[in-house]
């Protein structure tokens, strides 16, 4: 096969490309330029967009003896990932930009361009495995190395995308194995630091970056679940559901327990806070859902699934069904730390079934916080 290896400049994609070469494929390495003003040197744990990363990717390709090119997706990345990220925060949601990048850049723009140019597949260094079921359908499964498993961020891939994807690190690899293998293969990135921060936020401080992007202060109220006004904020985009620090509410809660952001209402520019228990969510739902590979046969009645709502979150048992065009997920036990904008990925065992971007959540105890925020705003 003619394989395009997406090379970030990191150790995982370098080893993935090496394995694709070894498997006998005709491999070409491509680095995605995602920033128009790429920094010269990499700093800390941020992303893959510096010139140093590009040079690392090129060096790996040279060592592997494969061609190397840089493709510029910076305009598309800005439009479809960065601007989406800002818009989601402005709408009071908590987006996952890596998910969007996979959905819209790596397995869309890059894959489409690769296919147009005669490639058969795109290969990446994700920790996940592709298996084939008895009928020959492709299935995406978790990596056995659960600490590194990246099936969650690949949950957005549909059957067509899976058919043109290749994850040579597969189910078996552990990070230590991959680093050792890189070292054995003479790849200088063997000991390169992992990246885990959002690549386009320079100092790793999302709130500061958002303030700069969104600009201008937009003061609003901070209220509790009973509708009492507790304080003011400088802009609701600066908050994330589940946030505890930086609320700057002078007086403590009557019971002395810390308060958390429960909901953000951009419509009324109101932030609702309350006890940790009130963060518990019993149901999540979203209309923007996709099936990863072949869709389940009967989806209009609730069926058992596992659901994961964060890249490094735990999987919890739940029931899912499609009701009125919306994928509704009822959690067997309420969970905390889930907010609109996040992605819920559905699992059946180790298999990724599909995903949805969460449009709404139902609090297990506090009722409809959006309506509460509107009532308080109307009174003020």
């Amino acid at each position, binding site marked *: 096969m003619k394989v395009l290896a997406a090379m970030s400049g990191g150790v995982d994609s370098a080893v993935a490309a090496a394995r694709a070469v070894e498997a006998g494929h005709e491999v070409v390495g491509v680095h995605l*330029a995602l920033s128009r003003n790429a920094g010269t040197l990499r700093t800390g744990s941020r992303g893959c967009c510096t010139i140093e990363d590009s040079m690392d990717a090129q060096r790996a390709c040279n060592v592997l003896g494969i061609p190397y090119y840089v493709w*510029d997706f910076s305009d598309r990345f800005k439009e479809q990932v960065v601007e989406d990220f800002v818009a989601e925060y402005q709408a009071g949601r908590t987006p996952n930009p890596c998910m969007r990048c996979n959905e819209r850049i790596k397995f869309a*723009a890059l894959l*489409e*361009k690769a296919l147009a*140019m*005669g490639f058969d597949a795109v290969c990446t260094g994700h920790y996940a495995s592709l298996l084939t079921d008895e009928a020959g359908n492709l299935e995406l499964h978790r990596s056995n190395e659960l600490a590194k498993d990246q099936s969650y961020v690949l949950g957005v891939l549909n059957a067509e995308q899976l058919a043109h994807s290749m994850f040579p690190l597969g189910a078996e690899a552990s990070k230590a194995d991959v680093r050792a293998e890189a070292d054995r293969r003479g790849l200088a990135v063997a000991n390169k630091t992992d990246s885990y921060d959002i690549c386009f936020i320079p100092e790793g401080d999302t709130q500061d970056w958002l303030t700069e992007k969104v600009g201008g202060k937009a003061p609003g109220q901070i209220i509790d679940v009973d509708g009492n006004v507790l304080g003011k904020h400088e802009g609701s985009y600066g908050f994330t559901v589940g946030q505890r620090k930086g609320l700057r509410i002078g007086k403590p809660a009557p019971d002395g327990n810390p308060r958390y952001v429960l909901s953000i209402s951009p419509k009324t520019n109101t932030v609702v806070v309350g006890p940790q228990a009130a963060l518990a969510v019993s149901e999540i739902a979203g209309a923007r859902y996709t099936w990863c590979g072949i869709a389940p046969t009967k989806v209009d009645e609730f069926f058992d699934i596992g659901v994961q709502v964060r890249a490094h979150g735990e999987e919890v048992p739940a029931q899912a069904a499609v009701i009125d065009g919306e994928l509704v997920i009822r959690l067997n036990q309420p969970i905390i730390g889930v907010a609109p904008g996040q992605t819920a990925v559905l699992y059946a065992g180790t298999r990724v079934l599909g995903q949805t971007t969460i449009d709404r959540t139902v609090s297990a105890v506090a009722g409809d916080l959006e309506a509460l925020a509107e009532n308080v705003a109307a009174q003020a």
Partner: protein
Amino acid sequence: MAVYLDHAATSPIRPEVLLRYTADLALVGNPSSVHGFGQRARMVVEDARESLADTLGCHRSEIIFTSGGTEADNLAIKGLFWARNNADARRRLIVSAASEHHAVLDALEWLEGHGPAEQRAQLHLLELDANGMFDLADLEKFLAERSDEIALISLMWANNETGVVWPIAEVSKLAAKFAVPVHSDAVAALGHVPVDFADSGLSLMSVSGHKIGAPVGIGALVVRRDVNLVPVNHGGGHERKLRSGTLNAVGASAFALAAAAASATLQERAKRDSALKQKLISGARNLVSNVEVTAESVSTLPSTVHLSFAGCPGDSILVLLDMAGVAVSNGAACQAGVIGASHVMLAMGRSEQAASECIRISFGYDTTERDVEEFLAALPAAYEGARKAGDAA
């Protein structure tokens, strides 16, 4: 196997140059040393200087060896700007064009953005038409109005991307009427069209070795004897107190030999290249419907063909040709491999998209008809793939 059609980026070392160069590498001695070893090394440098002066049509004392074209351009522009501005503080204008090589453009922008506000350069970039030509009458008008404020003119002899050749001698003649010095980056022109410093009337001219079959790391700035420059780097003043650093004797020798060889074969190569260019253009037109030849109606280097393919991202064509074993370019080499829109095509009034849909094919001393045939053989599939990639974008 692989076909190399990117000589404007760098050209393979000529066999006779390689022989001399590898033999010379064993040379012991710093040309600036007093002892016999130093004197023998100095002999190599001065032989090279005389030979190169002969080839370039200048006096040997006018050649300042540098590390290459970029250093020559920086010394020319900064050195002349500072000297002229020091002599008369009113002189802050630099006349140039947006299609210059980045070695010139970046130096200009640096002068525009650094130093005390009242000493910073002001740029006057000549307007270019769709063929990349400027109007001499515009230049004359500007000179007549502002010559007291003009520090220098810097206009390239031939464009490294499109191959468009500018009437440098006419520019010099015009500028001389107003006593304004002219620099020309002749890196792309040397070896492909006749370049004679004395005939050109220039004050300064940049040339480079590796574009004409010498190794990378040697170039020269030709500085007319009556032109004052402020040095840019300091440390011994080895070259006429204008350029410091141990002289690259071996490189200078290789450069002089390559320049002499290029000069001796110029006419026959120009004839051959013109024929290859015609073959390539008519072949491309037969194979691909929407190919456009840049600046076809003006004078261009016989060794450079610049083509646009509407709807086909240039980077995709380049990648697909490379994967088929044919090396061409989008123009200037780019940072970290990102191929953006051509600043030259933008300067010629093309849209951002149109300026991203072009490729440059450039010939060198060892280019053959077979190379052009292989390019044409690979073109249809590359074009088709790039068109699909363009549709997918």
